[in-house]
């Protein structure tokens, strides 16, 4: 309980003691979120460098931003063409299932 508290307070205070292990853990956690590098983990356990992970992270965020842009354009089209008022209930229902 207290450990969780201290974790969150470390993160909010700008000054944190950075240890090598801590950074490695964070880099691995980040790596597991990247579709490009998620699977390379098993074969070559520690061959992916931190800088490669950072690079791929940048690329991935950029691609997600592009997807948001594309979807916004698509939604613009749909807002002007289709009747969206009936769809709201369907969306909420599909999320709750």
């Amino acid at each position, binding site marked *: 309980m207290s450990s969780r508290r201290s974790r969150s307070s470390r993160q909010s205070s700008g000054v944190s003691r950075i240890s090598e292990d801590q950074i490695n853990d964070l880099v691995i956690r980040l790596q597991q979120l990247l579709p490009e590098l998620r699977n390379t983990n098993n074969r070559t356990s520690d061959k992916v460098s931190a800088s490669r992970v*950072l690079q791929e992270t940048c690329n991935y965020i950029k691609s997600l931003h592009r997807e948001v842009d594309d979807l916004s354009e698509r939604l613009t089209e749909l807002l002007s063409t289709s009747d969206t008022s009936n769809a709201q209930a369907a969306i909420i229902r599909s999320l709750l299932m």
Partner: protein
Amino acid sequence: MMNQQSIRNSSSRKTQFAIRFLRALTRIKMATPIVSSVQSRKKCSRRIKRAADTSMAATIGSRRSWGRAILLKHRKQVRNRVLMRQKVVGDNNKGNKTRKIKVVNKEEKQINKARKIDSSKGVQGSVNRANKLRKLVPGGDAMDFCSLLEETAHYIKSLNTQVQLMQKIADIYET
């Protein structure tokens, strides 16, 4: 148990995001009944994008600095828009206006200061890449390296959810 809790959190977060975003979409639709020109179409899709970003940030709440950064930026934009409108109307509360601009400058200065302190730390070789990452993660400018990594992981997850839900909403609209 921890895992169960996080699953429940994520599904309620999805619903919260969807409700916020759909409300914003309805508002946008009311404001722009017929999207005709290329320009107004672009403006509309920018509004939708902003609505999606702020809906996600509001759902996350103030627990994360990237969420706070998005909301702060959004509030600034709204404030600026209000100021612009006041300027157009041409009323004479000039003192009020300059005070608000000063506040904005102060915030920017603090961010720059934080960045300067941080540049002395960091892992060799990765510093350049980390700086690129700072530009992509909202509020990344003011984070130390560890928080940057932590916030990035969380930001990626949320962005992923955002994309999935926008996709789902678009698919349902289309049918």
